[in-house]
């Protein structure tokens, strides 16, 4: 394993987070079994107190997932020099079979933690903890995913061995060893451009419609999910090349570097926040009917939809600006 400080940092903090989440879900399990709001017994009071701890833990996990997503990519990027053929993070992640799965897990867990926090927020606004059971079942389901992510990440890093001169007889990597340069497959640009425009319009429109009429939250949620996937594919397909001003450069990670004015950060933040809030809006709809939430959920959904629309709009604007000012003509 490569004993790089950033790797130690990631492994250590992921490990701590996993422990916290397992601890939280253990209490979640107890809450699901023993919750009884009507009773004033000290056991019930204790459970109610615990819910604060669990919410706090999950809030931290959410923030951590976001940061660790970027730190993970950054680490992969800075390690690329240690592997033949790896030009940036894309190459490093390809070194063994765990690199990309970990990235996907981090992304999914970030979204799930975000959903949990949205559900938690709604639950707390209801005077009888209406969503408590659902919430904690959700948590119990989320915990194994986080643990699995930590395990895979550990395996990934343990499986990284730098291509360095290791013995006096030396090894030549270029020809004898495998190269990890990855050709990130990309879809044809014209088709993706159309798909991108369509999906952005769809999500922003459905968001505005929802804010105005209060209907169509499932549409918004679906459109957000689609927007995420289409955007990621578009970044690979044509957005990347325009920003890099190089038709063959498809890497989605190089956007995060200084050379491109760190444009990747606002882009990914906007994309992720838009997706979480858009899908979260749809997530809350089944709970509108609960009596204690009837007054709370619609307002909350409108706020989430607004954030979603704003985020996707920002995302689109930044991209359009970069495309317009790019020196590339494709």
């Amino acid at each position: 394993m490569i004993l790089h400080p950033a790797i130690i940092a990631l492994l250590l903090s992921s490990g701590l987070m996993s422990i916290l989440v397992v601890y939280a879900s253990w209490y979640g399990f107890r809450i699901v079994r023993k919750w009884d709001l009507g009773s004033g017994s000290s056991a019930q009071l204790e459970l109610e107190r615990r819910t604060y701890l669990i919410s706090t833990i999950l809030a931290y996990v959410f923030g951590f997932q976001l940061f660790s997503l970027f730190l993970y990519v950054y680490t992969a990027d800075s390690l690329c020099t240690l592997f033949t053929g790896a030009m940036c993070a894309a190459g490093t992640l390809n070194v063994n079979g765990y690199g990309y799965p970990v990235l996907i897990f981090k992304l999914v867990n970030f979204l799930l933690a975000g959903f949990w926090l949205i559900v938690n927020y709604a639950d707390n606004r209801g005077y009888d903890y209406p969503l408590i059971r659902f919430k904690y079942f959700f948590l119990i389901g989320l915990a194994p995913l986080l643990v699995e992510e930590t395990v895979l990440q550990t395996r990934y890093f343990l499986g990284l061995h730098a291509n360095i001169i290791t013995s006096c007889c030396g090894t030549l990597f270029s020809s004898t060893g495998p190269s990890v340069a990855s050709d990130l497959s990309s879809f044809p640009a014209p088709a993706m451009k159309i798909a991108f425009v369509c999906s952005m319009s769809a999500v922003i429109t459905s968001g505005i419609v929802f804010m105005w009429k209060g209907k169509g939250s499932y549409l918004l949620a679906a459109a957000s999910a689609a927007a995420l996937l289409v955007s990621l594919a578009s970044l690979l397909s044509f957005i990347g090349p325009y920003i890099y001003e190089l038709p063959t450069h498809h890497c989605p990670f190089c956007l995060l570097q200084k050379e491109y004015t760190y444009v990747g950060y606002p882009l990914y933040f906007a994309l992720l926040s838009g997706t979480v809030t858009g899908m979260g809006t749809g997530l809350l709809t089944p709970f509108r009917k609960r009596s204690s939430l009837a007054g709370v959920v619609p307002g909350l959904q409108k706020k989430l939809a607004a954030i979603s629309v704003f985020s996707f709009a920002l995302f689109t604007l930044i991209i359009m600006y970069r495309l317009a000012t790019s020196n590339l003509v494709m």
Partner: protein
Amino acid sequence: MWVQKQRNIIDFTISSLNRRKGKNTALVLVYTLVVFLLASVMFFTQALKREASRVLRDAPELVVQRMSAGRHELVPKKYLAVVETIKGVSSVRGRLWGYYYDPVVGANYTIIVSEEAGHAPGDITVGSGVARARAAASSDIFVLRTYDGATIPFQIKNILPSDSELVSSDLIIMSEPDYRRVFGTAAGYFTDITLKVRNAKEVGTVASKIVSLLPDTRPITRREILRTYDSVFDWRGGLVVVILTGAVLAFIIVAWDKASGLSSDEKKEIGILKAVGWETSDVLLMKFWEGTVISLCSFLTGILLAYVHVFFTSAALFAPVLKGWSVLYPEFRLVPFLDPYQLATLFFLSVVPYTVATIVPSWHAATIDPDSVMRS
């Protein structure tokens, strides 16, 4: 509205921290120390890596060494002719260099022949480390023993500038005939071969051709050297970080202890807050800001101190471990280098464990029953 609430709570948090200066100072000191140690290691390793790669940029693209029974052997002149025949290769040169042990100071020098330097026989250029070790200055006489016991006096033409100390500290540059005289290397033999490849992408192909034409050689590419250096620095840096996890662990325990060991005064205060209308989440918020203020102070101070330590005192505390054992320490000033990535890593190594350690104790504090205040 929300902003005003945060401001109110931060207000109260700061006043509350001030009221418990003693306890908090101890924590901040330990926290700062941990950040300082970790940051120093990271800054130092990173700066060295950058220095090494900057300097290696001028290293030859491809070096060909001859191996015999796993050991390094001299390269016969005819190998150069063979290498020259390979397509895409330019400027093939034979290099002469070796190690010289000086019993007077117990140091190893690297003696190298440089055609560009164009030394006349008897003239040498020495690196600043060598000059320091032998207390020699320009135009002094510098005596070396040959392989067969004779001594040759050389004259120091000049001393290499200190900006290049990292690679040149232990160097002695001399003319080819002098080299062969000192080491007894027969004419027609070189230590190794360096060459340039016209198209950078072809380096690998050229290297494999060399191996097939000259099976007892091993070609080393510059990229491989860079990778190895990177790895070594990373590894050494990582090793120290791993050792420091002991310190981080102790720090976590201190943090946890401080957070859970609420004095009766503090407990009373929180009880009062709850009693007059603060919710558990408000108290949790206060604890969050408390942690943030402490973390921010310690993190920034630790980084600042580490920056000064590494870039102004050249890592006085660490140098021995990370540079390796040697009599000739290059004296050099590291180029200050800071990037957000380092800061992020440090954040994960210090602030995250601190936060995790204080989550449960903070929660315990925040869930104090207001009732308890009524009956005290």
